């Protein structure tokens, strides 16, 4: 298994999918909604790209299909649910750390305002 760092940097869609699936198991549309909500509407995942990404991540073992099914009343056989694997979580964490260190660098150079220190 390749070290998570080898896969970095992740593309934006990849990162947001992993992020969304980090907290719960979602189907395709759920992922789109989660990404939208998390970024305040800035990131709009498109369906084609989304599934390309999901396929790729499935192939790499970061994401797998889950057997989760909602209430029968709301179920639709066509919707498949996904969840993140341990490897996926590791890759996401690695990317988040990379981004964090980048942000720290930008702050030290004055590109970003200092973080408010909370009491």
């Amino acid at each position: 298994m390749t070290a998570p760092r080898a896969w970095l940097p992740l593309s934006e869609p990849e990162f947001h999918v992993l992020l969304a699936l980090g907290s719960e198991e979602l189907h395709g549309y759920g992922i789109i909604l989660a990404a939208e909500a998390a970024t305040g509407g800035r990131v709009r995942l498109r369906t084609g790209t989304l599934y390309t990404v999901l396929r790729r991540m499935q192939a790499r073992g970061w994401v797998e299909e889950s057997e989760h099914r909602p209430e029968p009343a709301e179920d639709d056989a066509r919707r498949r649910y996904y969840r993140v694997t341990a490897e996926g979580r590791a890759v996401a964490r690695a990317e988040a750390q990379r981004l964090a260190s980048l942000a720290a660098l930008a702050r030290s150079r004055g590109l970003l305002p200092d973080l408010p220190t909370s009491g």
Partner: protein
Amino acid sequence: MAGARREDDGRAPGAGRGEQWLALLYGMVLRAQPLEARSAHGDELWRTLLDVTRAARRRGRLAAVSVALRECADIAWSGLAERGAVRIRTGGGRVNRGRGGRVGGLMGGAAEDVRYAFRKIGREPAFFAFAALIIGLGVGANTAVFSVVSPLLLRPLPFEQPERLVWVAHASEGGMSAVTSRSSNLRDYRALNRSFESLTGYFAFFEYGSYNLVGDGAPERLIGVGVAGNFLDVLGVRPLVGRNFVEEETVWNGRPAAILTHDFWVRRFAGDAGVVGRFLTLNGTPTEVIGVLPASFDFASTFAPGSRVDFLNAFPISGETDQWGNTLAMIGRLRPGATVAGAQADIDAMSARLAEEDPARWGLGAIVTGLQSQLAGRFRTAMVLLAGAAGVLLLVACANLSNLMLARGRRRAREMAVRKALGGNRRRLIRQLMVESLVLALIGGVVGVALAVIVTRLIASTTAVSIPLLSTASVDAAALVFTLAVTTAAGLILGIIPALQATGGRSAAALNDQSRGSTEGRRGAALREMLVVTEVALACVLLVGMGLLLRSFTRVLDVELGFQPTGAMLWQLDTSRPFDTGAERIAFFESLVARVEALPGVEEAGLTDTPPLGRNRGWGIRARGVVYEEGEAPSVFPRIVDSRYIRAMRIPLIAGRHFTTDDDGDAPPVLIINQTAARVLYPGQDPIGQFAIVNADDEHEIIGVVADVRHQSLEQESGLEMYLSYAQAETAIAGRTLSLVVRSRLAPAQLVSSVRGALREVDPAMPTADFQRLDEIVDRAVSPRRFILLLIGGFAMIALVLAALGIYAVLSFTVSQRIPEMGIRMALGESAGAIRRRVVGRTLALASLGVAIGAAIAFPVARLIRSMLFQVGATDPLTFAAMAALLLVVAFFAAYLPARRASRTSPLEALRTG
């Protein structure tokens, strides 16, 4: 929300159409995705797409549309990206390079399919040629029928704004006098009406007279039609060369002028435009040629099919022509916005008012109908029948080909299964097979058009069939569009079953499965048997139709005509020789007939003014002393004849005597009537010696009763008929054409030359070329019926052959598949004969089922064509039984050959092939 599974997607109202479009678009962009993507996530992608667009819809329709478009674009783009057609960076230096695939697209796929189809055709040219021929027959039949039906029922008449033209007919029973009107009617309706932009008419009895053309060239007998001055204007026809009539030419004793018909102009003057302005001597009168009609307006074909018209001249609407009685066929052009119903009310009102003003006036009143329906109405049923039969034939051809392709499909099942295992999408495979069928159908369509052009040209050139507008039948742009539609439909119909069948294979495991006993094999066989049953059923429908029409036709030919048509010929005599007195005219004709009768080989000869099976007028007749109700006076068909006509026609004399030369102008007026007239006028009495009043004229004494003659048409019973001696009615025949009947046992060619010689001796200026055989006249009367019969019969025979081929092909195939089974049976002791019986028996069972279904369909259909049948019931058991028997016999023979082959195989051989 109830329900275990929400399959209905909880659509918002009104979203259905939009989602259909979305589905269409999705289907298209999905093709950009690589195969694994489609099979892995196709459905899911669609579901997600729906979710996204529905959410967007809550923000408004515009938002939904733009979101839908952007999503679909993204699907296409990311799909192409995965295929590697476009390289995009996906991050981290790991560029995702998919397999190098062609950028699929809808158009690319179809073009590929077409190329594939042509390759397949190239590999099996014999099969495809055969198949193209079969489709060609089906399509060609439909195109030909369309070309014939189109001028009559579909194409507008060759006039300006023909939908505003109406036929204004006098209204009562009894021949042409019944539908024609007086000149005064035309004059007064013109003046008083409110619904018509213009009214016109033509002289409907134009065939009673003719015009001798003398001058450069041989004397020729021409037929001219008198028309009102505005006739061409009302129809909206402009002369090709020259002009229409002017005022001076349209009054009584006006300046003689003629407008030539296009055919006559080409025939006699070779299309020379310089003929306009020249003078022709017609019946001794110099007549100026003032114009030529365009080729698009064929008067005879439109208004008097089966006759020939050479020119139009002016018919004055005057008091003089009014005296002639009901003579005009009236045509009107409605004002913009006026309707037929309105015009009818208008005519009724005018007639009532005119009747009030002059109670003694007779002949008022008319019925208004659309011109096109008037001309075509009589044949509507026949045309619809032809169209239906052609359609049925095409279905038979499609079923036949479907069957053949199903047989080939078995060989392709392997190919299809392999392609599916490699990820071929079933829809795409079906599409490819359908494209193949369509290509085949289009090739067949081209063959069909070629056939149709030939057939249509044959039909249009014949003058032997008196169906209106037949001469304008042609394969035009509309027919080609129709052909394209029919061909496409045929391709789809014939291709769908084999395509579904060939791609329906379950799995690769099926590849190894032997056909015998497998569900695939059995389902395929059942499908083919069902197609055979369909073919037989459809062929049965056509055969029953043919059978009924055939029986009607033979019944019509068997009808007791009342005269003897064989062995007689008819000459149209016309002399422009002037006579001072009527007696001179009679003497001239008497000597003429005597000269002809004296010829060696001539048995009898006689004269009449109205040849049989032509158009006739109606006169009023009353028995003396009988009081008739208003309008109840019977109508009679008169014939003005010499003393020999009745004998020459071999019309039996039932009572009394014939005319003699003593019944001349000085003798008391006499009359011969037919049996029907005797029954109607003098019921229960002996008519001989009684008196009848004709047309409010003098009284005539009845001196003889003859048998009924079918003078109007073979199907119609004769009405009241009477014969007048021409010596006593010579004013009625003045200037008229007389018909000479010559009965002889000589060969026609011999008779013609000797009679023509005799005629020329009597009057060198008399045209002698206008003759025909009496049985040809009878023939022409049944020509429309025969025409329809030939076409339907042809379709039925083709369908029968196709059905037989279908049975043979299915059986050959089934038998070859079952050889191992038969080998076992024979090894176990079953005789060859028993095997044959089994095979043939099953086929006959299928054929019987087909016949039963076909008969069930034919029952109600036959009722629809009741009006075309003659003395045959629509459910005539003899016809149904005969056609059923014919089909079963054909099925038997079609099955026998393969059955024989099956029973001939040796058991060892059979088991080995298994």
